[in-house]
Every structure is written in structure tokens, then in C-alpha cells.
């Protein structure tokens, strides 16, 4: 399992568009990618579930990847967060 933490700098938070792009990205990997807040979690492939986490500006999330390409997946998602969120 790979794991990293990220604090959202986007003004709105994880909003619809990046959540959609994240879902697309997550589908490219075999590994299961999970976005976790303190109390809830969602599969990154599932746009509505990720949005329903209601993650806002300044909130810190933990991202976990599990699977054969977990390392690459974690790197790709981390790059995505830094670029878009």
C-alpha cells in the first residue's frame, strides 16, 4: 500500500470538474485508490462519492493506493492534486 497526505489549496475544494478528472485518472490504474477524510472515505473512481465527501479548501485528505501499480498510481494522483487542487 502507498499512502500520502495532501492539503487542498483550491478555493472551492474538490469540486465537480477535478473530481471528474480524478475519476478518469483513477480508472487508468488497476490499483484501488481511496480518498479519506477524518470520518469518511470514497473510491477515487466514483465522482459523486468523492464530491459527497464535501472536501473544502484547507482540508487535509489521505490518499491510499493498493494494487499491482500502487506506486505509479500514488505518484500520478499526487501530481494531479498538486497541479489541480
Amino acid at each position, binding site marked *: 500500500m502507498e499512502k500520502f497526505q495532501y492539503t487542498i489549496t483550491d478555493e472551492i475544494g474538490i469540486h465537480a470538474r477535478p*473530481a471528474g478528472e480524478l475519476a478518469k485518472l483513477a480508472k487508468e490504474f488497476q490499483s484501488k485508490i481511496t480518498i479519506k477524510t477524518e470520518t469518511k472515505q470514497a473510491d477515487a473512481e*466514483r465522482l459523486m*462519492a468523492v*464530491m*459527497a465527501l464535501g472536501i*473544502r479548501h484547507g482540508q487535509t485528505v489521505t490518499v491510499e493506493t493498493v494494487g499491482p501499480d500502487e506506486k505509479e498510481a500514488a505518484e500520478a494522483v499526487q501530481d494531479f492534486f498538486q497541479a489541480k487542487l
Partner: protein
Amino acid sequence: MEIIKGKSILNKVAIGPILYHRKTESQVKRRTVEDTEAEVKRYETAVACAEDELKTLHEKACEQVGETGAAVFEVHMMMLEDADYRDSVLNIIRNQKTNAEYAAAVTGDNFYRLFADMSDEYFRARAADVKDITDRLVKILSGDAVESGFLTQPVILMAEDLAPSETVQLEKNMLLGFITEQGSPNSHTAILARSMNIPALVSVEVKESWDGKMAVIDGETGTLYVDPDEETLATMEKKKQAEEEKERLLQELKDKEDVTLDGTKVKLYANIGDVSDVAEVLKSNAAGIGLFRSEFLYLEKKTYPTEEEQFAMYRQVAEMMAGKEVIIRTLDIGADKQVDYFKLKKEENPAMGYRAIRICLTRPEIFRTQLRAIYRASAFGKISIMFPMIASLWEVQKAKEIAASVRDELKEQGVPFGNVAIGIMIETPAAAIISEDLAKEVDFFSIGTNDLVQYTLAIDRQNEKLDEFYDPKHPAVLRLIRFVAESGHKHGCMVGICGELGAETDLTEEFLKMGIDELSVSPSFLLKVREKIRQTDLTK
């Protein structure tokens, strides 16, 4: 006439007849099906069809309102692909043996509620998106065509709610504005309205009886007038014309240089009182801020603003202006600007009383706090300092001395600060007359015409009875301005005007011929003055 308040999406006026748009609710009936896999297939086909529709809408929206406004349809496409949504629909079809329309409607409802109950306004507004994609699917499944282009004359469109896919399909040139009962200022519909640049009011309790009636939306106050009386109509027409004029100026002039026909460059700056004014300054692309009235921060507080509070505000303005000059006028309190916690005694003649630099020099602790904040902020942009209400040479020397000791203190503490120009306001006749001596002390002058006129003519500018005597363009004033420009330039001192006279376009040419280097005006006058500068030829 009926007057109704709503939440305004765009600060503009719209005048026209109301068209009430009734939404045709597709009634979704539950049917039991035998062949559930056939329903699943129907659903898959409907999704593909919806995606096609959304693609077309996305293209259309890109053309009409640009990428940002069109992004909503991309989001809808992504939502349609969402695995949870899809799983839920398929589950209902298979387990409850129902028709696809019903399964989609139930799923849509559940997701709608999921978002509608969220505490954050942005996420709550996504409920409308869920509803929009669900309605689209249900319509396709039940064979209803998505309606389009039903407007035949320019109207203010009124509806309980407008889905983004509906707003973008409306003929843009037929739409004057819209009024809805639903929709938050964060909804996609609102975002589209903004990018289409049409006024809109949301949270209005709409009445069917308004259909066809004349109406006015005043976006500035968030007011809807149904059946406006003649007076209201005339006022609003005027307001609309002024807006259109402003818009025209903005389109033509926002990115143009402030240069005369003969090639003389002029510094066109803006006067601001608060951080919130900066947006307008940036929109008109002013070359700097010629007067930042720092007293705003003092006036809105119940006690002295701290160094940190002031620093944060100055820094923000400096950073927003990104390297363009920001001239901060030190505290100008007293006279017509009273603050309780300063505990100033009531005066017989406050305009000539204990105010501005006179307070700063006798209560240096207040002055030092402000100067420290300004100097610290100067590490984040190009900041200049300006002292108000100067009448004597020693006042300037004393103020500079305090500024120098603040710099020493910061240096000692290792606190960074930038290179800060120091200037003064010329707003007393005394300062104007000794301007040659003053010019040797400072980097720039800024002529505060409001007070200069009042003190030169000995006329209280707040006394309406004196209006006929109050002449801001009095030859005495203009001669003083000319004299200040000449004396300043003799000693390499930049000379600007930051009073209301600076925005008088019939004086612009005269000022520029006097050699005034900088005109600082209220943000709403920037473009008018820019237009005038660009029409002026100083060789003639």
C-alpha cells in the same frame, strides 16, 4: 407597481416584458417489467444518447459563453458515467423489476438529497446538476424531446428553476435577464448568467400573474419592479444607458495606454478606500493607486487597528497591484471623519482643527504603528507614503524623521522593507505657496483639490447653502495648481492630482499642459479620463 427583492447575480439593469416559463414535469410512472435486461439496455442507450446531447450542448456553450461557462456540461457527462449512479439504477431495475425511467428518477432523487443536505453552499448547489442529468435521462427514456429555442422576442425570462441545459439553449440575443425562485448564486445557472453577462435575480417568489407584464431588474440593489411606474422606468432607463456607456468605454479602452495624441505618457491612477475597490482598478487596468485612504480601517473598527491588521491589508493591496505603485495616505482622521475611540474633543471648526498629520505628530504612537505596517508591506510590492494636511515645512521634516526612525527600528529587528518614496498632499494654500521649499524635502506632491478649494475660497464644502459660491474651477485654485506643478518640477518632484478635480475631463488638457504627471481618480472615472487623455494633443 410591485417591488420585490431577490439575490442578484450580476450588477446590471434589464428592462422588458416577463415571459413565464412553465416547466413540463415529466411524470414518471412505475411499471413492472419482466425482461429486466432489456430495461438495462434501454438505460445504456439513453445514457449514450444523453452524452451525445451534452456534447452538442458543450460545443454550443463553448461558442456562446466560453470554456468556463461550458464546463458544466463536461461535469454532467462525468456524472452520467459515475459508477455509483449507474449501479444504483441497474440495481433498482434488476431487483425491483422496474422500468428504467423509474429507476433513474429514484436514483436521481437519492443523489439530489445527498447533495442538497450538505452544509457547504458549493456542494449543495450540485444537487441541481444531479436533477438536470436525471431529467435528461428520464426525458430521453420517455421519448420527450428536449425543448429548445422558444423565445421569439427579447424577454426577461421567469421560471421556478432553470437547468443549465435550458439556459444555454435559449437564444442569447432574446434574453434580457432572468428571474428564478430556485438557484443559489453558486449554481451553474448563475455562473452561466455571469458569463453571458445578463442580469439575473434568484430567490424570488415568482407569480404566474406576472407573465407578459413589463418589468425591471436592478441588479445593483437586487430589486425587481413589476409594472414599474413612469418615474421608476425613467430612472432605470438612465441607469441602463450609463451602464452601456461604461461598458462601451471598458471594451474600447480597458487595455489601452494612457498616452496623449502627441505621445506624452500620463500616469492614470485610482483612488481607493478599501481592498474591495482593487478589483475595479484592475479591471480598468490603471497604472497604480494614487490615493489609498487608509482611514477606512480606522473608521470601521471599535478600537485602534493593530499593526498586524494594517500590515495584512496594505500587503494584500500591494500584492494585488503586482508591482504597480500604491500610494498610501497616512491617517486622515478628524474634521468630517470622526472615530469614537480617538476621543477627539468636539471642535467649533473641525475642518481647520485637530486632524490628519496634526494628530499623527502629537500622538506618534498611533503614527508609528501605521508606518511600521506600511514599511513592512513594502517588501511585497511598490508602496509609497503620503502625508496629508501639510501646512509647514517643519511638519514634513518631523514626519520624515519619525519615518526614518521606524526604518531604523525595522532594520535593527531584521524586518525586511522596500524602497519607499515619500510624498505629501498639497491641500492647504500655505503648502501650495511654499511648495518650492517643500519640493526639496519629498519625492512627490499630490494635490488634494477638495480641501484646497475649500481653504482657498474659505467655503465650507459641506454647506449646501453655499453651493452657488463654491467654484472648484476658480482661477485662484487653478493658478495654485499651476504654481505647485512648476515648483515641484524645479526640484525633480513628481506632481499629481488626487482630488475630485482630477476627474473633470474638461480640465484634463489644462492639467496636462501645466505638466501634471499623474491624475488619480475614483475607479469609476478611470476610463472616461483615459478616453480624454487619448484625445488630447498637447502640441496644439
